[in-house]
């Protein structure tokens, strides 16, 4: 195993950074600005996470937290850090990254800033799966996560099959997703309507999405998904810009159109499924991460890695706000992201108006 090589190149006036194996067999190249933004977001996400680890009912100094993390803390702080706070922080980071990557993928594939998994019905399908487990089968914990993953995958397959007609047009996919999710929304409100009040409230908390009380099981679920799928997605994601130019152009440039799209869509679905399974359908991270990263990197298509890092940073900040911004204590992080989502959509509205006017 040889160490990766970092090089700075210049392509047509744009500075790029290339991270690759010495022989150049594998490499990850991105514009310098994207790399800087990505690094900044990563640092921000980790810094906020560190703050989250220190703060809570028992504040722990940063040095003690760091000592615990490298395995040299005392038993008291070890318990709080490893068992109580670290799983939540990791779930937050990983779920944010998974949602961010999934959103960026779908927005790229559908060529639409609103084409995120929230709106094409994936998270609604996951919610239906989870609600069936909570309210009909009476399960909890890992069963709920499994139900969500299964619900998400089944919905994705259904949407794909319904949208398939001489190939799949991106926009028809989005619209069919909206139709299917309307159906599932009705089902969800019916499930909540006929449940007992206690169960309905707990199901509703799950539906808002929260990282509170998540343990190492959820970390493993979403961690494995991110570790396995993110590299695959990054590998195929380099075609995303080319796919956006249209199938014919992409084919002419040697992009394996159908295969790239299928792999990307499949991985996007799986990432959304795992994230929803771990933390519930947290709104708007998937929607906002890609376009925000795109603004910062000043490129129309942010690329999946900046999108994922933006998702992690967004959710980390939101989760800190959810824990500490209100005097009443812990609120579900989904509430915070929904509020931020409202701000984001308003901004989108003003921005579009100004561009049109």
């Amino acid at each position, binding site marked *: 195993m040889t160490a990766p090589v970092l090089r700075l190149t210049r392509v047509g006036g744009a500075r790029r950074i290339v991270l690759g194996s010495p022989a150049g067999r594998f490499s990850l190249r991105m514009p310098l600005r994207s790399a800087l933004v990505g690094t900044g977001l990563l640092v921000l996400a980790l810094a906020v996470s560190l703050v989250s680890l220190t703060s809570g009912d028992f504040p722990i100094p940063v040095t003690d937290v760091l000592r615990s993390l490298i395995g040299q803390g005392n038993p008291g702080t070890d318990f709080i850090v490893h068992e109580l706070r670290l799983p939540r922080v990791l779930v937050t980071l990983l779920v944010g990254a998974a949602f961010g990557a999934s959103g960026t993928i779908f927005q790229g594939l559908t060529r639409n800033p609103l084409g995120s998994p929230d709106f094409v019905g994936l998270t609604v399908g996951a919610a239906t799966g989870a609600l069936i487990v909570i309210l009909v089968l009476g399960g909890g914990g890992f069963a709920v996560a499994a139900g969500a993953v299964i619900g998400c995958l089944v919905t994705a397959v259904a949407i794909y099959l*319904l949208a398939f007609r001489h190939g799949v047009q991106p926009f028809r996919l989005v619209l069919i997703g909206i139709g299917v999710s309307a*159906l599932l929304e*009705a*089902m969800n409100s019916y499930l909540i309507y006929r449940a007992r009040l206690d169960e309905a409230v707990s199901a509703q908390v799950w539906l808002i999405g929260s990282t509170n009380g998540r343990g190492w099981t959820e970390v493993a679920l979403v961690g494995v998904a991110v570790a396995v799928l993110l590299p695959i997605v990054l590998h195929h994601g380099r075609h995303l810009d080319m796919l956006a130019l249209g199938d014919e152009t992409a084919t002419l440039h040697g992009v394996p159109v159908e295969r790239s799209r299928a792999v990307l869509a499949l991985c996007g679905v799986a990432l959304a499924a795992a994230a929803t399974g771990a933390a519930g359908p947290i709104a708007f991270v998937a929607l906002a991460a890609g376009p925000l990263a795109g603004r910062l990197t000043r490129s129309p298509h942010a690329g999946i890695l900046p999108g994922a890092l933006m998702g992690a940073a967004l959710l980390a900040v939101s989760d800190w706000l959810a824990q500490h911004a209100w005097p009443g204590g812990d609120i*579900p992080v989904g509430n915070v992201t*929904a509020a931020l*989502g409202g701000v984001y959509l308003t901004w989108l509205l003003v921005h579009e108006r100004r561009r049109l006017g």
Partner: protein
Amino acid sequence: MTTGTGLRPAPVGAQPDQAPPSRTARRWTGLAVGLVLLAVAVALSIAVGSRTIGLSTVWQVLWHDTGTPESVIVHQLRLPRTVLGIGVGAALGLAGTLMQALTRNPLAEPGLLGVNLGASTAVVLAIAFLGVTSPTGYVWFAFVGAALTSVVVFALGGSGRAPTPERQVLAGVAFTSVLGAIVWAVLVSRREVFDRYRHWDVGSLADRETSTIVALAPFLAAGMVLALVLGRQLNALALGDESATSMGARPGRIRALGMVAITLLCGAATAASGPIWFLGLAVPYAARMFVGSDHRWILAYALVLGPALLLASDVAGRVLVAPAELPVGVVTAFVGAPLFIALCRRRRLSVL
């Protein structure tokens, strides 16, 4: 209805009402069939339920309140529910027709574009933070919510340069999910309001107070009259803004009046029954299949088919899972979503 001079000067031949006599006859026949269907739906809605009452008995107790259990059921439960169904069905059918005509978007629908949920959000905020308790109080907030949402969704969906049907639907869904998140965030910490809301959110005609229906009736009636009056102008608008202007119509005013009508109809209907999806999509679609593109006819059909479809769905909801009940909003979603999907699968999503 077949003649009229709403637009001056009206070039002969450009009027959509110069239809051949056979077509007019067919339209009238269709309307008559629709009325018969509505009558059947009304009869079923009064007769069928967890305790089914024979039609002859229904007829008898309808006119003579005898005080028997059957009579009490008919007068206290079924009759208000049916009247509400007629009002809400007509309102949503007309609102859907108006929306599709104003936006020239065959996919426009009060539920999909978020107007119904906008109304609900305002009502929830009013209940939770302003302590509003009476339905007559709700309705004003429902109007504000419905109006604000329609403005935002049309703006977000790009009503300016290149409005496409798909963009508008997507904007509606996006905005709806913000609203939904706000609603649930508010509710989850207030159990009693949550309990009431979840029974309302599902979209149901059951257990609504007669006083609510009476209070909402004027708003529904005003919205319906306004919608029906606009029919001729909508025909002009369908030719495009420039042609409409040259024919003496004023597109800006038509849109503004149409929005007022939509707000009245959706606000009142949602305050009464909770958000009901897809009725506003299916009704104008079915009406267009029968009568073509003349909006006066489409509106007349919507006025008849909307209630018929809603009542039929409500009866189906009572029968399908008896002795329990499926709320009508769930039934309409299960009927309407496949229709929406089928529409989207057609090769070209033509602009109206």
